[in-house]
């Protein structure tokens, strides 16, 4: 467990050091207008939606599935919330509506995968493509701007001197950890991901678990969508959450969860999401030219993925790594 978290943590630390080198005050946090202010706070705040989406994605991937539709769900929920508020609905009702619709969309994904038996990548592709169109239908192709101060709090406001979004992400993280690690749910998810047929024979209702997991992923995406829309006080059906599903899958992989399903690491996922967000912020801070941004990102991500690979480490550092290879091989066995 700790070994798996080691490499993403090292990369995160290196990225922060790189920033410190270019921007001496990078790690400093000051109090401004009664709340914390600094680059680290920014990373957490802008990373909060990705952390949320990645948490849901972790559980989906742990069952051996994948959810490509989360980006569209982000757009739909943000669009719904803004539309409802612009038509005079209260903030809480609007947010509840957006999150509820997200939940229904997730259950629909789960239904396609668990009951109809469509492969997850195909089943969620439907909503990925159609959902983006749905979001544009809701916004009528426009950007809906809302000026509600209460709505602004969710993604752009503060509580206990911290951005509200960070706290919200922490609450969802805590709930997820509790549900999967204190209750049996985590074990059930891992067993379905490890071997669905064996789990069924052992008396597990894998259908229900699958639907729950997809609904949870969409729920997380729905909350993230409200957060993204609230942060800029507007809903952009075309761009909100665009490609976030890929970032989320990457965060899960960086965090050491295997795409083949089985064991998962929530801590690793959070770390992975933070690595991605720190990377983005680093690019802005040290001034990587936009033309080379993607190359820079690709190089860092490739490095992280290589470091995560036991086979690569065994070749690159033959002697020192022998004790590490053993436990990692164990996990792959469990996963299969």
């Amino acid at each position: 467990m700790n070994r798996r978290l080691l490499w993403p943590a090292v990369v995160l630390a290196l990225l922060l050091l790189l920033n410190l080198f270019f921007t001496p005050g990078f790690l400093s946090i000051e109090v401004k207008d009664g709340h914390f202010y600094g680059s680290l706070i920014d990373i957490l705040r802008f990373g909060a939606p990705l952390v949320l989406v990645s948490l849901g994605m972790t559980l989906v991937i742990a069952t051996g599935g994948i959810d490509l539709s989360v980006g569209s769900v982000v757009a739909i929920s943000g669009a719904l919330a803004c539309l409802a508020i612009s038509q005079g609905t209260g903030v809480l009702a609007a947010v509840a509506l957006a999150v509820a619709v997200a939940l229904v969309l997730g259950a629909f994904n789960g239904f396609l995968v668990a009951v109809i038996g469509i492969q997850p990548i195909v089943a969620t592709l439907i909503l990925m493509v159609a959902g983006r169109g749905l979001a544009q239908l809701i916004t009528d192709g426009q950007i809906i701007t809302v000026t509600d101060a209460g709505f602004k709090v969710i993604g752009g406001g503060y509580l206990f001197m911290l951005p509200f979004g960070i706290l919200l992400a922490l609450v969802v993280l805590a709930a997820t950890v509790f549900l999967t690690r204190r209750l049996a749910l985590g074990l059930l998810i891992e067993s379905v991901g490890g071997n669905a047929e064996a789990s069924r024979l052992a008396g597990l209702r894998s259908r229900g678990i699958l639907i729950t997991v997809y609904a949870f992923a969409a729920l997380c995406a729905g909350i993230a969508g409200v957060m993204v829309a609230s942060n800029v006080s507007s809903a952009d059906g075309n761009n909100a959450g665009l490609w976030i599903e890929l970032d989320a899958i990457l965060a899960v992989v960086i965090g050491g969860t295997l795409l083949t399903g089985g064991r998962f690491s929530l801590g690793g996922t959070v770390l992975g999401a933070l690595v991605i967000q720190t990377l983005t912020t680093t690019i802005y801070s040290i001034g990587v030219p936009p033309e080379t941004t993607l190359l820079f990102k690709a190089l860092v991500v490739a490095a992280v993925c290589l470091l995560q690979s036991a086979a690569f480490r065994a070749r690159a550092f033959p002697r020192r790594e022998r004790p590490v290879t053993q436990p990692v091989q164990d996990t792959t066995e469990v996963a299969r």
Partner: protein
Amino acid sequence: MLKKISALVLAGVTAVALTSCGKGESGAAAPGGGKTIMGFSQVGAESGWRTANTKSVQEAAKAAGIELKFSDAQQKQENQIKAIRSYIQQKVDVIAFSPVVESGWDTVLKEAKNANIPVILTDRAVDSTDKTLYKTFLGSDFVEEGRKAGKWLTEESKSEAGPVNIVELQGTTGSAPANDRKAGFAEVIGSDPKFKVVASQTGDFTRAKGKEVMEAFLKSTPDIDVLYAHNDDMALGAIEAIEGAGKVPGKDIKIISVDAVKDGMQALADGKISYIVECSPLLGPQLMDLTKKVLAKEEVPARVVTEETTFTQEQAKKVLASRQY
């Protein structure tokens, strides 16, 4: 505008688009009944700018007594090619379209030429080497927009000794408006060494990215005098970041942006943005004029620039109420 090419994302709605090609046609008059018929293929409805563009074309056609056959390509080139072919079959008098992408138009344009139907490009260009395939290209000059932004800044900071530290929020990397607006701006301010572009990053033409990038700029670059954003949306996002940093947008940091959409004009009137260069979608009336000239076999210039203006804060307050988009 080129900014919202989400063809990939919309790929799945293609089927819907294909069947709805003829759906948006206005009027059911028999073709050729003495009235001029125009076939117009729009990129999509991806932004408020684009919707205003569509509306302008539809209204201008009505006012000019031209029958419009309108189709929405949902940001897919094949839809657009299909629409143009169907216009050729219907023997319309003129075809106008905003190409989704720059390349791949030669075949279908040759078919139009063989059928003796003149073609007018609007808003976006094609890269065909054969310039006889279309009559004219009507659209904004993005380089000129960048120049206008630069000129205002040189005028505004004439009395300042400098240095003037500028941060730039670019549009989507590689898109024509981003490249050209950057080039035009750099060309004007490049003549005076007191102007320094201290940071320049892409904000993908979106509010969310504009805010995120500006947050990072504010921390990595302590002394920012001017923000140049390639569109209003990024400027609006950046305004939130600047306010969050305890600074006053428009005062502590002057903001120049391009587009003049309604939310942007509101911010300009509120004093948060300092200056906006217009990039107008309202090219309907000009398009109808050109159409009439082309059909009357008059000579038209190969490139017609959209009539556009610029707005200061004072001007914004005056025109705000009458903005259409």
